[in-house]
């Protein structure tokens, strides 16, 4: 059991996603600090991948910017080490199977733990394939985070029973990105998770950008995850993004903290 459960102890959790190295790792360091100082309870650090099949245009763009800036997995580990000197909130990596597999799954997990990570999210690894990665995560004390989707239906109980850390509840069909409206019956999904596993927190992601949306989603879950909206701020302000991300995170956390 990792540190992740602590993220869900301060009211509804706000989870911030940041693509590492967009546009530089120095900016990432500042942005992560700003997010943590302004109320982010958990931080997802995206390791960029050349072909992120679960991402919409905004995060795809961040991946391209980061990779063309020369970011590598090793450089990201170094940055996390630096971030950990001042940031104590739980942090998980979000990346794609090949980034971990190609590095050597065991070697990746060991390194990730050493630099202070708490878990891994791989959107292209479903329940049926998790044994490829989960044993190495377990060995080094990382939570392997499971996702459920609006199409999961009868799969939810099976996934929730074996879930670690929290369940990443995908709000909508399609890829990541800001949406004006989320139409999925989220409460039905989180109810099925709780029936199968009353102890696992549920955080909702995909499409959330405004405090109102966050509030609506948080009613049905233990936390909300925001990616594209933050990445957009970083895209707009580049190396000066940290204070703007901080301000945004504060507005989002304020909207959900006393629910």
């Amino acid at each position: 059991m990792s540190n992740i459960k602590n993220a869900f102890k301060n009211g509804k959790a706000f989870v911030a996603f940041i693509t590492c190295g967009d546009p530089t790792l120095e900016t990432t360091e500042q942005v992560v600090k700003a997010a943590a100082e302004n109320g982010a309870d958990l931080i997802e650090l995206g390791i960029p991948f050349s072909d992120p099949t679960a991402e919409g245009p905004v995060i795809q763009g961040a991946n391209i910017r980061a990779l063309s800036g020369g970011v590598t997995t090793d450089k990201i580990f170094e940055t996390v080490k630096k971030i950990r000197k001042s940031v104590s909130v739980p942090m998980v990596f979000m990346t794609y199977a090949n980034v971990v597999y190609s590095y050597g799954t065991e070697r990746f997990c060991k390194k990730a733990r050493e630099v202070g990570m708490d878990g891994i999210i791989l959107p292209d690894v479903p329940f049926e394939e998790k044994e490829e990665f989960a044993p190495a995560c377990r060995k080094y004390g990382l939570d392997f985070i499971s996702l459920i989707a609006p199409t999961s239906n009868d799969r939810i109980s099976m996934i929730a029973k074996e879930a670690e850390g929290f369940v990443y509840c995908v709000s909508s069909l399609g890829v990541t990105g800001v949406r004006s409206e989320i139409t999925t019956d989220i409460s039905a999904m989180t109810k099925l998770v709780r029936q199968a596993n009353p102890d696992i927190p549920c955080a909702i992601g995909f499409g959330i950008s405004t405090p109102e949306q966050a509030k609506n989603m948080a009613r049905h879950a233990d936390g909300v995850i925001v990616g594209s909206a933050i990445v957009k701020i970083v895209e707009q302000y580049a190396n000066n993004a940290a204070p703007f991300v901080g301000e945004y995170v504060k507005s989002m956390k304020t909207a959900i903290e006393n629910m």
Partner: protein
Amino acid sequence: MEEKTNKSRGRFGVHGGQYIPETLMNAVTELENAYNHYKDDPEFNRELTELLNEYAGRPSLLYFAKKMTEELGGAKIYLKREDLNHTGSHKINNVLGQALLAKKMGKTRLIAETGAGQHGVATATAAALLGMECVVFMGKEDTERQALNVYRMRLLGSQVIPVTTGTATLKDAVSEAMREWTNRIDDTHYCLGSVMGPHPFPTIVRDFQSVISKEIKAQIMEKEGRLPDAVIACVGGGSNAMGAFYHFINDKSVRLIGCEAAGRGIDTFETAATINTGRLGIFHGMKSYFCQDEFGQIAPVYSISAGLDYPGIGPEHAWLHDTGRAQYVAVTDDEAVEAFEYLSKTEGIIPAIESSHAVAYAMKLAADMDKDKIIVINISGRGDKDVAAIARYRGEEIYE
């Protein structure tokens, strides 16, 4: 077949599996169940056979290339004429099967990726015939290399979406089609064009393409009274090769040779030869070999052939490679273009630039073999679509 875990499905040795977003898992399970139900269903098979024979023009010819054989002075060369199929390539075999299956599943819309445009054209054709909506994703670079095929798809009533992400080629078209599928699943079937992607696609596509080796076997037995010594096919994702190999896998005397696109050479970065230059990885739903850098970033591959310009290879090929049952060789742009011109002049058959990779290797191999040996080259498609690009390659600008 060895399996990594008992939960993982669709393994070929360590390769294969289902590395896809959770959103798609029920969709691939539904597809697998439907396929298992219909594959042995007499009515489904009757309908499919009728489409293949009456509409696509099967069986395709197995042609003895007498002039080529005499000129090269070695093994007897037979050409399996998949280029004569309706829409001009082997792609129609798989597409008719999948479109019919999708229709039985109640789907009304097909989406597909395409590289050279052959699979896109085949899918657009099946959609027109079966009254389904169709959207094809094609790398922007490829829409320019294969402009004729883009218009062809639109003529057939399909929408073609140019993909600008990444290298704007086949791999990006696959990524975009996958993204679209996670966005719209209920009424949509992803008609994947090669023996790749998550299970059950590698198996389904192989089964629908295996009609090629089934026919070769019967035809060569009739003409020669024995099995060939080698079957040669080009390999990108690997569907025509898998189809041409499949019924020979247990006939150990038959050499199976896949020809990868070496582009400007396997010692350059401008190559798409996955087995020859890649390593084990996980991408586009499967574990297999991929061209990638040391941190697992997928390499921007290159080949003159838009259909072979893909950084991975189907999992069953990866397994045939691991077990040594099939051999994978690399053929450069130069060699392929020469073979393209050679077959055109020698036999009056203009092969697709993809298939020309197989022709190029066969030319080398045949010359070194005894005259009593027999090789079969799978001519996976016709080369009309490539004429302008070959002219350009030879420094001549022509307008389509």
